[in-house]
């Protein structure tokens, strides 16, 4: 399984194409060709690998590739944009599963050859299997939570953290036993079975333990925290591939795997920052539930509510409008109606743009994809810092299905969401909030924005109210 010099050089070309392809993702104008470049890099790596190795059974390999390509292709074509987080979760899982399968195959091959496993190879096989299996089962749970098959609420039980820590330790001990026969003998003697053959039973225990760990690490995390989980699992799937690279001594796997690992890690950090929470708090805090659970306690305070006609008037006679979409917009599938309202406003000469918070959606950047699908031009999609610089010169902010990310309480050091980066919508002249009720968001706290003098509450189902708004703006 030595890689020839020519293949190594081809892998280097492939690595350059991967990195430069990702670099092109820095602008929406070049992103598509960047993705194409990365796929060429992948094709090159695959072709070179096939030519460089004596494939004994072409039929089986071809059948497996075709089966995978058909499944992947159908999923990619059929998936609704709203379900993108689920798809990415499943793909993360397959990436981890593939890496674990390769490591397992290598374990069986080395074990069967009778040559024994060296310490270095043992450690990498164990790591690759561990990370891959955790990614696989963890991703399937994340998929279940996003799809609603598994409850979005945090699932907790007494001593959960201690149990997870013990399980992790046990997996590590089993792993160490596999990696090094000396440790293995020691472990075997602890269990009193002296001289147990280190091998398949230990390996199966490792896989079972790792799969269980993946499940247990994701179930206590609430539905609203899934952007962090999906990002983290994305990182793991890369690390698993890199670990497989160490197993096989293949630089291509190490390079591509570490690129993905870095991408996932950066997105994880960004998501945590956007929620102003540490990764530890997300992982063990059992925070975000699947939806609003607490009713606002201060519902007696007066609010100014408007109907579609009044809201349309305010919007139609504004000079500039900033739209702040939240996950509620996607749930109500109202993004196409929203686009119609914006088109009508622009026809009247109103300047319209969108302020998108990093956690508006179920995965990083999700809301931008949904708006792009509704035909919103990407230069109108502004991120947090850019839109915040514009609010004090904005006439009207239209908030659709967002809550915590526009809550001024984040500026109050005593609040539970203190320090969370928010959209400073209260700086605009008028704020229209389209929402079902005054109920609290994921953070479970009341939103002072709703009771402010310049805020108009436009109650109702986002989709229905948005079509009302289309009608009224047209007539305004």
């Amino acid at each position, binding site marked *: 399984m030595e890689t020839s010099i020519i293949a190594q050089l081809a892998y280097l070309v492939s690595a350059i194409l991967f990195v430069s392809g990702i670099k092109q993702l820095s602008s929406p104008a070049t992103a598509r060709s960047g993705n194409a470049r990365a796929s060429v890099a992948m094709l090159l790596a695959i072709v070179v690998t096939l030519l460089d*190795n004596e494939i004994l059974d072409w039929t089986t*390999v071809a059948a497996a590739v075709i089966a995978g390509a058909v499944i992947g292709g159908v999923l990619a*074509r059929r998936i609704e944009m709203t379900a993108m987080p689920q798809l990415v979760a499943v793909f993360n899982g397959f990436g981890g599963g593939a890496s674990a399968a390769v490591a397992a*195959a290598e374990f*069986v091959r080395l074990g069967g050859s009778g040559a024994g496993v060296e310490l270095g190879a043992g450690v990498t096989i164990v790591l690759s299997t561990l990370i891959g299996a955790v990614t696989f089962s963890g991703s399937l749970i994340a998929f279940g939570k996003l799809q609603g098959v598994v409850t979005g609420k945090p699932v907790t039980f007494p001593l959960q953290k201690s149990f997870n820590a013990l399980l992790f330790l046990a997996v590590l001990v089993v792993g160490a036993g596999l990696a090094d026969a000396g440790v293995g003998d020691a472990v075997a003697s602890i269990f009193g079975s002296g001289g147990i053959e280190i091998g398949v039973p230990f390996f199966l225990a490792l896989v079972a333990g790792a799969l269980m760990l993946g499940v247990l690490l994701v179930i206590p995390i609430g539905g609203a925290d899934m952007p962090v989980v999906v990002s983290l699992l994305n990182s793991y799937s890369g690390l698993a591939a890199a670990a497989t690279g160490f197993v*096989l001594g293949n630089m291509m796997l190490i390079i591509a795997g570490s690129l993905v690992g870095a991408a996932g890690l950066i997105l994880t950090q960004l998501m945590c920052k956007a929620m102003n929470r540490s990764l530890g708090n997300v992982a063990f805090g059992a925070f975000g539930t699947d939806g609003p659970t607490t009713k606002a306690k201060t519902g007696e305070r007066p609010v100014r509510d408007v109907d579609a006609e009044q809201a349309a008037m305010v919007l139609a006679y504004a000079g500039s409008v900033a739209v702040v979409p939240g996950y509620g917009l996607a749930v109500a599938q109202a993004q196409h109606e929203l686009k119609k309202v914006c088109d009508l406003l622009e026809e009247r000469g109103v300047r319209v743009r969108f302020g998108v918070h990093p956690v508006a959606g179920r*995965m990083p950047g999700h809301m931008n994809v949904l708006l792009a699908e509704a035909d919103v031009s990407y230069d109108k999609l502004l991120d947090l810092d850019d839109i915040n610089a514009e609010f004090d010169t904005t006439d009207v902010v239209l908030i659709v299905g967002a809550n915590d990310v526009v809550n001024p309480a984040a500026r109050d050091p005593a609040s539970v969401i203190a320090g969370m980066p928010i959209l400073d919508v209260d700086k605009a002249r008028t704020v229209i909030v389209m929402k079902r009720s005054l109920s609290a968001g994921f953070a479970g706290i009341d939103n002072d924005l709703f009771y402010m003098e310049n805020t108009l509450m436009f109650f109702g189902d986002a989709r229905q109210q948005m079509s009302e708004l289309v009608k009224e703006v047209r007539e305004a």
Partner: protein
Amino acid sequence: MGELLIGLYVFVLATLAGREVISKVPPTLHTPLMSGANAISGIAIIGALVVTGVADSTWVKVLGIAGIVMATINVVGGFMVTDRMLQMFRKR
């Protein structure tokens, strides 16, 4: 240990290079970035091809094939869905 050490160098340097280019991706494109990265993590396919290609036992073959199928789903599905998303990002 020589090969492992070289691998470690490559791993660390590639991670740093990845950090540089990926931190320049705007939040607007974070979903395509992730699905694209996803496709790239399907690189495990070349590992799966290598082990399946030289498989001399049934178990190695079964695991290798499982690896090929899962990784190919990742590669093909990942790049296709990323392309589908990116073509929606248009300037008007």
